[in-house]
C-alpha cells in the first residue's frame, strides 16, 4: 500500500467542533485519513465519536472547523460516502432486497444488480432477498446493512460501532468479512468501535480520542500485513499496542473521574 503524503488525504478533519446547546461534544479535533486505508476511532463512551462520524457523512453541521473529502468541504451528504449505523438500521417494513434498493429509490438511480448479487454472495445472504429484517439474525441484519452501504460503490465507508451489539464469535466473523471486502475494494474505511481487538485487527491506524469534548489524543500505526492471522494478532507487537491503547483510555477515564469528583 502506498502511503499518501499529508495534504493528499482522502478525508481531512480540521479543528472540528460540535456543540449541542450547552454540551460541547467535540472540540479542536483534527485528523487525516489516507485513501484506501482503514482507520479506527476508539474512545470513552460519549466522547463524540458518533458526532464526528455523522459530521464526516454530512448529516451534522459542525460548529467549528471543517471536514474535507478529496479536498472539498463536506456540507451535506455526498454519494461517495457510505454510512453503516450503530444498529443495522434496516427499514422493518421492507424485505432485505428492498432495503438494499432503498438508496437507489431515493436517488432515482438504476441499481447495479450484478454488483448487489455479488455483495450478497460475499456476505452469505444469497437466498434471503425476500426475508424481512425481523426474520434475520443480528449478524445477518448488519451484513445486509453493509451491502446496502457498499451497493453504491462508495469511496469512503463510515462505520459506527457496527458490531457492538453482536456476540463475540459473530463479531470476529464480521471483522474478517470487513477485511475481505476491503482487500477486494480498497475502500477507505473509518471504523468506530469500543473493542481494541477489533480496532487492531482491522486498522492501519487506531485513533484514541479524549473524553468529551472529543479531541485526538494519540494515533497508533498498526503495521501488520493483511490478511492478518491469529498468530500475528496474538503476538507481542499486537499485545503491546493493545496495552498502550488501553492505558491511554483508562488513564483518561481516571482523570475525568477525578475531575468530576472535585
Amino acid at each position, binding site marked *: 500500500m502506498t502511503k499518501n503524503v499529508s495534504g493528499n488525504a482522502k478525508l481531512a478533519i480540521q479543528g472540528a467542533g460540535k456543540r449541542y446547546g450547552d454540551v460541547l461534544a467535540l472540540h479542536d479535533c483534527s485528523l487525516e485519513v489516507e485513501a484506501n486505508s482503514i482507520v479506527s476511532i476508539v474512545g470513552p463512551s460519549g466522547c463524540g465519536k458518533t458526532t464526528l462520524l455523522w459530521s464526516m457523512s454530512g448529516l451534522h453541521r459542525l460548529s467549528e472547523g471543517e471536514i474535507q473529502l478529496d479536498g472539498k468541504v463536506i456540507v451535506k*451528504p455526498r*454519494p461517495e460516502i457510505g454510512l453503516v*449505523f450503530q444498529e443495522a438500521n434496516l*427499514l422493518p*417494513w421492507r424485505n432485505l432486497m428492498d432495503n438494499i434498493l432503498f438508496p437507489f429509490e*431515493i436517488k432515482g438511480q438504476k441499481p447495479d444488480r450484478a454488483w448487489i448479487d455479488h455483495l450478497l454472495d460475499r456476505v452469505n445472504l444469497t437466498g434471503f432477498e425476500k426475508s424481512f429484517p425481523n426474520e434475520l439474525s443480528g449478524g445477518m441484519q448488519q451484513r445486509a446493512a453493509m451491502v446496502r452501504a457498499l451497493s453504491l460503490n462508495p469511496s469512503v465507508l463510515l462505520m459506527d460501532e457496527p458490531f457492538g451489539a453482536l456476540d463475540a464469535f459473530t463479531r470476529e466473523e464480521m471483522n474478517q468479512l470487513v477485511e475481505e471486502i476491503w482487500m477486494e475494494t480498497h475502500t477507505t474505511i473509518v471504523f468506530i468501535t469500543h473493542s481494541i481487538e477489533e480496532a487492531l485487527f482491522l486498522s492501519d491506524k487506531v485513533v484514541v480520542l479524549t473524553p468529551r469534548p472529543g479531541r485526538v489524543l494519540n494515533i497508533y500505526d498498526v503495521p501488520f500485513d493483511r490478511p492478518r492471522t491469529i498468530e500475528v494478532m496474538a503476538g507481542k507487537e499486537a499485545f503491546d499496542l493493545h496495552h498502550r491503547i488501553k492505558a491511554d483510555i483508562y488513564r483518561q477515564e481516571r482523570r475525568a473521574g477525578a475531575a468530576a469528583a472535585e
Partner: protein
Amino acid sequence: MSEKTDLGGRVGKGLQSLSSFGSGTTRLEIAAIIATAVTVIGGLELVLRWLDVPQYILPPPSAIAIALITDFPLILPHLGHTLVVLLSGFGIGAGVGLFLAAIITQFPFAEKIIAPYVLILVTTPMLALVPLLILWFGFGYAPRIIAVALASGPMVMINSATGFRRVDSNKIALARSYGASTLQIFRKVRAPMALPMILVGLMIGAIFGLLTAVGAEMVGGGYGLGNRLTTYSSMIQMPQFFGVVLILSFLGIMIYVIFFLIGKRWASWET
C-alpha cells in the same frame, strides 16, 4: 420497533387473537367452536320456548332467522342507505383527519395549539350534534354524513398523528444520508412507519362512524338501519328488530376483518 403506543399494542393484540382463528386452528378446535355456537344458540331457542317467553320480550333465534330472511328485501334498501352514510362520512372524515395529521405533525408548535380542540372533537359524542345538524341541513343525507365525518375524522387524526410523531431519527438520517428530500422522507420513512397506527385509527374511526350513522338515523328518521330499529321496536316487531341488530354486528365485524386483513398485508412487520 423502539416505541409502541398503548393503543397500538392493545389493538395489535386484539388483531393477533383474531388471527388465531386463521391458520393455526386445528380441526378439533373448529369442531369445539361450532359445537359451542350450536349449544348456545340451540340452548337459547329451547329455553325461550320452554319458558314460553313472549316474542316481544325476546324472540327465539329461529324467529329472528326467519324474519331476517323473509323481510330482507324490505331491509336491504335501508342497509344501502346506512352504507352510503357510513362510507361517504367515513371517507370524508378519514381523508381530512389523515391529511391534517400528516401536516400538523410537521409543525409541533401548531400541534400544541390545536391539540385541545382535537381532544374535544374526539371526546364529544357527535350524536349530540345531530338535532342541530338536522336543523341546519334538513332531513336528507347531509346531516348524517357530516355527523359520521365528525365522529370518525378526529379518531383517525389523533391515531395517525401518534403514528407520524413516531420518529426514528436513525431511519430519517439513513434517508438523509442518501440525499432524500423532505417529501421522500415523508413518503418512504414517516408514512410507512406510521401505517400501523393509521390503520388502528381508521378501524376505530370506522366503528365510531357506524355507531354515529345508526344513531343519526334513529334521530333523523325516514330511512336507514337506525330508523328500522326505532320503527320495528315501536311496532313491536322484535324478530325483525333483532335481525337488524345482527346486520349491524355483521357490519362491525366486517370493519374489523377488513382492517385486520389490510394490516396483515401491509403492517405485519410491527408484531
